[in-house]
C-alpha cells in the first residue's frame, strides 16, 4: 500500500462520515415528523374529547332546563327563611297574629334525613283550641303564606267547648344549605 492508497482510504472515510451525517439528519427529520404526527393525534384526541364533553354538557343543560328553572323559582322562597331564628320568629308571629287560642308551642331544630340539600329544619309543634272554621282557615293561610313549609301531621279532636276543636299540628320549615 502506497501513499495514494492511504489517501484514497482517508477520502473514503470522509465520504463515510458525510453519508453518516446525511443519514443522521434524515433520522432526525423522521423522528421530528413522528413526534409531530403523535402531537397531531393527541390534538385530534383532545378535540374529540372536548367535543364529546361539550355535547354531553349541552344535552344535560337541555334535559335539565325545566328542573333548573324549577330550582330558580323555588330558591327565592327557600332563601326567604333560611335560619332557625327567622323561622321561629315567623311562626311565633303567625300564631300571635292569628288571634286563636294557642295552648302550647314549641320549636326545635332537626336534621333532615335523605335530603342533602336541606340539611335541617325548624320543627314547630303547636296546639290550639278554637272555632274549627277559624282554625282550618288559619292552617290554610299558613300553608299558602309559607309554600316551603310542610305540615308533618295534624290531629283534630273535639274541643272542651261546643263548636270548638282541638288542633295539634307539627310544622316543618326547611333550612336550605347555601
Amino acid at each position, binding site marked *: 500500500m*502506497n501513499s495514494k492508497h492511504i489517501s484514497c482510504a482517508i477520502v473514503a472515510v470522509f*465520504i463515510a462520515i458525510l453519508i453518516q451525517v446525511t443519514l443522521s*439528519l434524515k433520522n432526525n427529520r423522521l423522528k*421530528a415528523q413522528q413526534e409531530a404526527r403523535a402531537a397531531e393525534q393527541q390534538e385530534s384526541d383532545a378535540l374529540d374529547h372536548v367535543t364529546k364533553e361539550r355535547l354531553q354538557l349541552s344535552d344535560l343543560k337541555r334535559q335539565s332546563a*325545566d328542573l333548573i328553572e324549577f330550582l330558580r323559582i323555588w330558591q327565592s322562597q327557600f332563601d326567604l327563611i333560611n335560619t332557625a331564628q327567622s323561622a321561629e320568629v315567623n311562626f311565633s308571629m303567625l300564631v300571635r297574629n292569628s288571634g286563636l287560642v294557642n295552648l302550647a308551642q314549641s320549636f326545635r331544630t332537626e336534621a333532615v334525613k335523605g335530603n342533602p340539600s*336541606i340539611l335541617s329544619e325548624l320543627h314547630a309543634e303547636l296546639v290550639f283550641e278554637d272555632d274549627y272554621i277559624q282554625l*282550618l282557615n288559619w292552617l290554610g293561610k299558613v300553608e299558602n303564606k309559607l309554600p*316551603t313549609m310542610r305540615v308533618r301531621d*295534624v*290531629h283534630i279532636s273535639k274541643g272542651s267547648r261546643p263548636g270548638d276543636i282541638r288542633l295539634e299540628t307539627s310544622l316543618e320549615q326547611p333550612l336550605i344549605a347555601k
Partner: protein
Amino acid sequence: MQITKPQIDDFKTDRKDIMHPLPVILRLVPLLFYCSIGVTLILGSIFFIQSRIAEANKNAHIEQTASLTSQTEETLKERTALEAKIKKANDVQAWVSSSRPIQPLLVDIARSIGPKSSILDLRLERVPESPAQIKLALRLATDSTKQLDLTLESINRMNFRTFSPVQALGHGELDYRATLVRQELREKAETP
C-alpha cells in the same frame, strides 16, 4: 567556504522509482468525495428544513392540545356544577312535592260529614320515609259505613288514592285507617 559540486551530489539520496498509478476504480474515490459533499449539503439542508417544519408543527399541535385540554377541564367544571345544581333541584323538588298543602284535604273531609255523623278524631300524618304519602286515621260517630263512603269519595276527588285501608265499626263509632297517595305528582311543575 565553497563546496565543490561532487560533494553536493553526495548529499542526495538515490531517487526511487515513480509509484504505480491507482487502479481505475480507486480513481473514482475523489470524484465520489466531491459528489458526496454536494449531496450531503443538498439533502442535509432539505432534511434540516423538514425537521424544523415538523418541530414547528409539533409545537403548534402541543399548544392546541393544551388549549383543548383546558377547555375540556372548563367544560367538566361546568358540568360538575350543573350536576350539583340538578341534585339540589331534585332535592328541592322532592321537598316541594312532599309539602303540598294538607288543609284542603282536611276541609274536604270535614265538608263530607253529613248531619247525622260527626268527626270524633281525625289525624293526617306524613309517612316519614315517604312524606308525599299521608296516613289517615279517622274516627267517626256514625251508625253505618255510608258516611265513610261519602268521605272516601271526597278524598278521591282530591286526587288521593287510598292504600291498605282498615276499618272497624262498632258501638256507633267507625274507625278507619288508610294511607293516602296523591296522583299525578309530576304532571306539571309547581310554582310557589
